[in-house]
């Protein structure tokens, strides 16, 4: 990873990112994975995200009329992510990446003119309303309904695993508009005001004890006619485009090599045996290879040479390596490995015990790893359905 050399222009850009972080430092923690900011931090959080767009550090890939750069270099996005991670400052949360993809391709001029600038100013924090209790990996089986009533749409149903719903202003909703049509063809995409009457957000308590996700209930929620994106029935192509964009973002994960270095320091302190040395060396190699594949994915994306299986390969490797390292860490700690924060004898502030629980979410979310393997085999290698 040390051999990635960028030209002087990109290194100047990196310096600009660092200067921006120093000047606008939000003083907020970098939240792992799916965590949402505390409600009291939201105004500061919004200012920070808006500053990143305002300085041209985010959204460079957007069409020029909406604030993008004509000759945007995607490696800049990688540099921004890298610098935000190194400085331990948060990156913008929410579904804005999905939403802008949907709006560029399918939004009306009025929708684009209203919503896109509000993403850049972070006046709107978006959530994604896709999964349902009976539609997880089989997303197209979703049952939440949208029925015409005059000019309006009336929504009924339930969503689940909705990250950030409790703090979001708007949601990107998938609902069934034609129950008679084949399952992929009867779906439409909508913009929902999360504070509209009939929308109920109820926090889910996860196995970690935290509440990062929500259930969202729709009881006769009326949406104005102009809240549909595209035409009725366009929901599935919109979703596919949005999700593949989200997956390409997952090429940029935080490196697991630092966790392995921490474990190596522990092994030195506790005089661990050669078997432990080898296991840690092997985990380091796995983490480094995951980093290399993620990095190469970004570069290939930038060069327009990416293949359909690149992002799924990276997702599977990152999330499973992450889980295996956390699991191994606890084994390595032995009896003390059972202690969690805030026990005074906890190891490494309880980082690995938390990771041991949280890591399970990442192998499931954003397309379970089984679905990723299907994508690799079918779309990537052409194996028959």
């Amino acid at each position: 990873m040390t051999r990635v050399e960028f030209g002087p222009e990109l290194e100047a850009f990196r310096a600009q990112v660092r200067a921006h972080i120093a000047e606008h430092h939000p003083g907020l923690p970098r939240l792992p994975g799916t965590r949402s900011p505390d409600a009291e931090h939201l105004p500061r959080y919004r200012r920070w995200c808006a500053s990143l767009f305002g300085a041209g550090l985010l959204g460079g890939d957007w069409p020029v009329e909406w604030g993008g750069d004509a000759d945007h270099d995607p490696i800049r996005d990688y540099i921004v992510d890298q610098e935000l991670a190194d400085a331990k400052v948060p990156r913008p949360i929410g579904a804005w990446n999905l939403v802008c993809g949907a709006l560029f391709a399918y939004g009306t001029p009025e929708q684009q003119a209203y919503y896109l600038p509000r993403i850049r100013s972070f006046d709107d924090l978006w959530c994604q309303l896709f999964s349902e209790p009976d539609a997880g990996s089989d997303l197209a089986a979703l049952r939440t309904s949208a029925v015409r009533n005059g000019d309006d749409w009336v929504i009924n149903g339930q969503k689940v695993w909705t990250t950030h719903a409790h703090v979001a202003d708007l949601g990107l909703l998938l609902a069934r508009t034609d129950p008679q049509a084949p399952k992929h063809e009867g779906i439409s995409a909508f913009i929902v005001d999360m504070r509209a009457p009939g929308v109920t957000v109820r926090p889910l308590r996860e196995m970690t004890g935290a509440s990062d996700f929500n259930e969202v209930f729709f009881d006769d929620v009326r949406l104005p006619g102009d809240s549909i994106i595209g035409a009725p029935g366009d929901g599935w192509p919109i979703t596919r485009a949005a999700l593949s964009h989200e997956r390409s973002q997952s090429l940029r994960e935080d490196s697991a090599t630092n966790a392995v270095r921490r474990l190596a320091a522990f092994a030195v302190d506790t005089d661990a045996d050669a078997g432990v040395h080898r296991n840690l060396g092997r985990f380091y190699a796995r983490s480094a290879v995951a980093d290399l594949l993620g990095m190469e994915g970004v570069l290939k994306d930038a060069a327009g040479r990416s293949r359909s299986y690149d992002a799924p390969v990276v997702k599977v490797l990152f999330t499973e390596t992450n889980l295996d390292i956390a699991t191994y860490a606890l084994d390595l700690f032995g009896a003390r490995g059972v202690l969690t924060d805030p026990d005074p004898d906890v190891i490494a502030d309880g980082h690995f015990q938390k990771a041991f629980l949280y890591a399970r979410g990442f192998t499931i979310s954003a397309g379970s790893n089984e679905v990723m393997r299907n994508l690799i085999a079918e779309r990537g290698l052409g194996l028959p359905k």
Partner: protein
Amino acid sequence: MLPPGDDEAALRDACREVLTKHSTSARIRLIAESETGHDADLWQLAAQLGWPALAVPESFGGLGGSVTDLCIVAEELGRVVQPSLLVQTLAVGELVGRRAADDPAGAALLEGIAAGTVIATWAVGEPDGTDGVELVGGTLRGYRNFVPDAQCATHLAVRAHTAGGAVLVVLPMDTGARATPMRTLDITRRYSRVEFDDVALDADCLRLDGAAANLFELGVVLQCAESTGVAGRLLDLTVAYAKQRTQFGRPIGSFQAIKHRIADLLIEAEGCRVATRDAAEAIDAGSGVAEAVSVAKSWVGRAASFVASHALQIHGGIGFSWEHDLHLFLRRAKVNELLLGPPSWHDERLYGLIGGTSG
């Protein structure tokens, strides 16, 4: 690190085209059972095409390729389980070109490699120290195990210990090195123990101080490139077979049990590709070499064997036959995995490099 460019694709395509035609399964098996174990026709052709010259600087009639380029050739050779000493010759050319081009013996060697008249092999030795060669007063003494195809090499690069540290010595085979065949799992590549009974170095021999470690690192990277080729080819064969083989009225590739296994093979093979490339670039850049090389071997050594193992399982009974080539790949993958330091040795080295204390 950059995505492969057009030049590299051209080199890869050229190698693949030639090897597909001239390094068929039947040919590999024929050569493996021949007296010399050496495909002289293929060597001739490779020399005409300038493959050995890739490792030689332009000022000596070579093409001045990078280690990344050499890895492309090694990977393509791996895709057809070619045992050719081209890999070892490229390594020697690279080290001599970088370190000893001003030496008359070095210049002669480079010109010979570029012209295709020098066929070199390496006596790297295992890092666990089970074998050893000493250079004392201009004389070599000791032995090295697992020297590839010494019986058909004209030159040998050997790691030797001196009072002042390890050095690399390149000498003509007929200077007095004695090769005894060793029997290994890999039936398409011969290995020898090479013994030096007080072999006196003469003016045709070349001594490179400080290059002994370079030979080890470069050897591991080229070995990884070869195994990357093995993994890539096995993946292709397995995908094709899963599409074509029908059982229960369906192609077996339509079963999720097979799909998921094959997806895992792709992940392993992709890791091989980027890890090897990163290690090659590290050598070209001269920084972070030990770490990148051991990351590569830790991953590739195991991954190629993993891919071979699962490729066999997915092929079912046909893969267990002598006539099918899968076992040739399985054998090559396993031997490559265990030589030049097994993955566990490289894991331990990595542990030391990331702040742990080894041993």
